[in-house]
């Protein structure tokens, strides 16, 4: 059996409480007491796409940041392609492409090409390989025009595509995307999803773990869905199985039922 692309075992994460005024000086040294993840475990197989579904503050971004080596877990283990996200962080970074879902994270006065070249060099790509990868990704992502324009002149959608191109530049096997279509309009988001499905996931053994609030996106892309609520994994199964076990016809209803929000929603919708 091939090694899991991503393995998360009993991951816990707590943060210190937010402080203001002079107490903010003590904040970096305070004991973590606010629970964000309360012991989550799951695996993503090579070539598989897993969606993280949960309300705001459920812990999805925290989990993605732990896997991207940007946060340290309080307890538990996380591995990418067999490498430990804490002890072998550099090896993990070789395996992953991370996309934070915002249109920040680039140098506004550099062109698309200059930005990609910079990040590619930091990922140890040779100049020849960089040139080839950039032109290939630009063609796939329809970024040819954007490559020679300063970032500050590009639309959010184009920057999002550029950000995904950056995540794929060094040909990682594992993609971690945090709300990848958050700042895209409906058409941009639809194109982005189509592109992700056909050009990125349709090729080879690329595994994808992504967080999203857009249920149609989850249904289109995900092989399985991990529903997270208040830092805990409620269930992890295929979209069809989630609907079947909850006796619902849509993923939205299944999600609401699984997170215990269905009655609340029903009350809210009840006419006075």
């Amino acid at each position: 059996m091939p090694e899991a692309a991503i393995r998360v075992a009993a991951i816990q994460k707590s943060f210190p409480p937010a402080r203001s005024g002079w107490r903010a000086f003590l904040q970096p040294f305070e004991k973590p007491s606010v629970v964000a993840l309360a012991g989550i475990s799951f695996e993503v197989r090579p070539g598989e796409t897993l969606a993280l579904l949960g309300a705001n503050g459920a812990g999805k971004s925290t989990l993605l940041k732990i896997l991207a080596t940007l946060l340290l877990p309080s307890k538990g283990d996380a591995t990418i392609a067999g490498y430990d996200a804490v002890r072998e962080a550099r090896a993990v970074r070789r395996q992953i492409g991370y996309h934070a879902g915002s249109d920040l994270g680039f140098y506004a006065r550099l062109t698309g090409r200059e930005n990609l070249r910079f990040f590619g060099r930091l990922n140890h790509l040779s100049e020849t390989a960089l040139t080839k990868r950039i032109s290939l990704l630009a063609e796939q992502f329809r970024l040819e025009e954007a490559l020679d324009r300063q970032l500050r002149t590009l639309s959010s959608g184009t920057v999002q595509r550029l950000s995904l191109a950056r995540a794929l530049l060094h040909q990682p096997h594992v993609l971690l995307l945090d709300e990848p279509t958050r700042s895209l309009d409906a058409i941009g988001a639809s194109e982005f999803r189509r592109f992700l499905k056909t050009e990125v996931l349709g090729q080879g053994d690329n595994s994808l773990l992504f967080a999203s609030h857009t249920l149609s996106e989850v249904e289109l892309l995900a092989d399985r869905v991990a529903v997270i609520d208040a830092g805990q994994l409620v269930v992890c199964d295929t979209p069809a199985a989630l609907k079947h076990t909850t006796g619902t016809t849509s993923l939205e209803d299944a999600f609401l039922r699984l997170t215990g929000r269905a009655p609340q929603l029903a009350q809210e919708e009840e006419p006075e």
Partner: protein
Amino acid sequence: MTRTLRELWAFFWRDLLIARTYRTVFVLEAIEALFGVAMFFYVARFVDSPQLQQALPQGGGYFAFSLIGFVFLDYLNAAMDTFDRSLEEARDSGTLEHLLVTQTSLPAILAGSAVYPFAATTLRIAVYVAWGTVLFGFPLRDANWLAVASVLLATLLAFSGLGILSASYLLLFKRGNPAKWFLLGVSSVAGGMLFPVSVLPDWLQLIARLNPVTYALDAMRAALLGGAGVQAVWRPLLVLVAFGAVLLPASMAVFSWALRRTKTTGTLTHR
């Protein structure tokens, strides 16, 4: 080694390309330098006297003495400021997370962020000295350039550690640069920047002798004005190298700890 050089080059090239988009800044800085040099020249003409010249250890008059003190302050400022300013910019532009998920190590990211600012500061200092030499008779003919370069390099090594400590403070507490305030504050009085330390009371002279800035300035003036070679300035060079040898690894360890701390508290990208 080659890989590290490529990483450093990537940062230098990035910063050069960004600076290129603000072309008028180069011209404005050159004009600003001219006004700065002219100010020191005329202040020196006003205060210079045979007694004052005797009090200056390396000769050359008060103009040369004060101009070196001033441009050196610029260098010190760059060493103290570069790391936390780069970090602040990366945090505010959202690039910090994307830098930290690349395969480039943390020391290379820190060093890379400093390459262009140091090169730009060196260029700015060269412009100051060029204006001083061409228009106001700054005495450059005796300078020992090898010794000058050695002193500059040793100064960068010595004070970069303090800059990295400042960046660690910024990571944890989000604002402020206490190491810079403290060092520049103390050095402006007890560092020999604009007047020789010999005019200070004994207790301040003692502080000046403990301050590495005093050694760096003594060595710089001796090399630039007195033509002293590397052998002649070995003592202040040794002090600076020793200061850097202790402070650089210690500051890197503190920065790594601060980064781990922010990854634990989840405040890496907080402002």
